[in-house]
């Protein structure tokens, strides 16, 4: 689960990590009060207005603006709040900005990068810092990987003092700033672990002209599996930032991801679902979605799956590929018939059922009065559905 910058900053503040502070608003009529509060509470005379969306590249897209006066800050709020912000991560359709953070502007002397995430191959968390702050970190990783310095966290031991020292040394910090940064890094790992984050990224972490180390931005992701342990974090979820069909699917325990193609897919198991998308692509079609109906597929899941797939207007045909293990194919077949009748489908449906009671299922489908295209094998199913999607 992702959260906004302003929410991540609240969490950082709670852990005693200095942040670029501000006030976040949703309505234009809160603008004046917000700017005045930032002036009063944080002593700011210059402001930064920052669009709050779950995507990177906000600055380049025009979603972050600096203001030297109150008036220009108000103008920037007016421009950014409600704009459709397009960045390299939003796709061409962009994202509607529903919240802005009015933040104090700080004098930046130096910018760094700091992040913690899981290194899957080693099975450890890794703390990374770089002197190349404020940049696209993927670019740094590609062009000058030596500029990213890592410390692996041994499970159960946390970020040790020597590791915090190593990280700070790598950034070339000395004196008071070094001490401050060491404290920040230790607290940051504590936050990462205690809140079950999957990524915390501070980019940039800055040194101000006054010599203070401050988090200027923050991007956090949380481990969905651990949200049951953190109800306060779970409440920070912003459904406006997610695809409505994906949110709807989740209510029914379906794992759905919308794509751009025309062939809707309903599959059990993530691996088989991906493989189904792949084969559709290989035979000349394009998948409209990823949909894993999970191990316990039944009449209800099939119905809900259909509804969600068909909420996408691009879908021209649907492929159901179920390999029944525990799930019985005859039940799925009945579910499909029921769903097709009830939902009054007007796109062709290709069905491939294999596994437990597959023969019985084929008979049920063949004897039904609904128009379903039955497929004999994985390849046959892919060919038939791509053909059907062409119309």
């Amino acid at each position: 689960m992702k959260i906004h910058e302003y929410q991540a900053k609240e969490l950082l503040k709670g852990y005693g990590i200095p942040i670029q502070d501000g006030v976040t608003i949703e309505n234009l009529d809160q603008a004046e009060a917000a700017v005045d509060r930032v002036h009063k509470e944080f002593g700011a005379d210059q402001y930064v207005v920052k669009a709050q969306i779950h995507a990177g590249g906000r600055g380049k897209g025009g979603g972050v603006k600096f203001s030297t006066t109150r008036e220009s800050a108000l103008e920037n709020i007016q421009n950014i709040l409600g704009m459709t912000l397009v960045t390299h991560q939003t796709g061409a359709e962009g994202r509607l900005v529903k919240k802005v953070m009015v933040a104090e502007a700080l004098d930046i002397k130096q910018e760094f990068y700091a992040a913690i995430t899981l290194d899957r191959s080693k099975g450890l968390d890794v703390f990374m810092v770089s002197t190349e702050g404020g940049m696209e970190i993927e670019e740094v990783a590609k062009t000058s990987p030596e500029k990213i310095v890592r410390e692996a966290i041994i499970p159960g031991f946390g970020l040790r003092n020597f590791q915090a020292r190593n990280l700070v040394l790598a950034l070339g910090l000395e004196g008071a700033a070094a001490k401050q940064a060491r404290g920040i890094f230790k607290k940051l790992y504590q936050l990462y672990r205690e809140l079950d984050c999957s990524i915390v990224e501070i980019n940039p972490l800055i040194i101000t002209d006054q010599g203070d180390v401050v988090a200027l931005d923050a991007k956090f992701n949380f481990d969905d599996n651990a949200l049951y342990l953190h109800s306060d974090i779970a409440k920070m979820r912003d459904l406006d930032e997610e695809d409505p069909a994906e949110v709807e699917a989740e209510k029914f325990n379906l794992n759905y991801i919308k794509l751009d193609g025309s062939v809707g897919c309903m599959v059990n198991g993530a691996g088989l679902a991906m493989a189904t998308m792949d084969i559709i692509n290989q035979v000349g079609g394009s998948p409209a979605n990823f949909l894993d109906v999970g191990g316990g597929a039944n009449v209800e899941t099939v119905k809900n799956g259909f509804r969600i797939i068909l909420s996408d207007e691009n879908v021209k045909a649907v492929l159901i590929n179920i390999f029944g293990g525990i799930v019985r194919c005859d039940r799925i077949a009945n579910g499909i018939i029921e769903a097709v009748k009830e939902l009054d489908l007007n796109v062709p449906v290709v069905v491939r059922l294999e596994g437990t009671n597959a023969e019985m299922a084929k008979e049920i489908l063949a004897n039904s009065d609904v128009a379903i295209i039955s497929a004999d094998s994985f390849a046959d199913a892919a060919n038939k559905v791509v053909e059907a999607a062409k119309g």
Partner: protein
Amino acid sequence: MSILVNKDSKIIVQGITGSEGSFHADQCLAYGGNVVGGVTPGKGGQTALDGKVPVFNSCTEARKAVQANVSLIFVPPPFAADAIMEAAAAGIELIICITEGIPVAQMVEVKAFVEATKSRFIGPNCPGILTPDEAKVGIMPGFIAKKGTIGLISKSGTLTYEAAHQLGTEGLGQSTCVGIGGDPIIGTTMLDLLKMFEEDPETEAIIMIGEIGGSMEIEAAQYAKEHVSKPVIGFIAGQTAPPGRRMGHAGAIVSGADESAAAKKKLMAECGIIVVESPADIGRTVKATLNK
């Protein structure tokens, strides 16, 4: 021969009194596996599966009483990490965790804990192991597999069934099918299993079914290049998956390597793995390879 489990494996089920646990324990027993008991803290002294097996309070008790050497775990996510560590501490040699949804941070600790013991751990969030005609330790339906000479390693459950089904169509069977799970942190890797299948005299060829993300397939392929004499057939699911859906910036730069399907397939092919492009061609490719 086979790897990991056979008809002599003494299997206990942690969480045997839960609905998932009892259903699948019964299925494993029905398949002919040697299920010798279960563990549910607080229910020691009772029986499970209609009186067929005893229930113990702890893995240590089960190990003492029935000499269990394999544990199959169905404990719910909040308690699963502890259950895995309990099994390892009790000296259970092989631990298979089916549970889905264990927090990653807990799995990081579990992995370190298990590595400090002599136990081998498979999973979590996996379908388990099936050695045809001998033992089923997990949730794979027994009918999908039949005895044969192909070692099957997979990150995905239903794609394992698909591959086994395709092998069956070609008249081929499996020595052992192992579902390792697709979570970020898992116990036994593809590389570990390649080694085991290479050493298993009954295995003639190995199928490795991977997915986008992580670098496990690459590590296995690089090992295979130097140390595996048997043919390895590989498939990577997710070539059309949208990039970056699960991991943000920091995740993508950790390994510095490309974790896309295309990059993995290219590297695997360079290491001498026979890479299958279409998921419908897995069985056929194995057959063709064996006929060479």
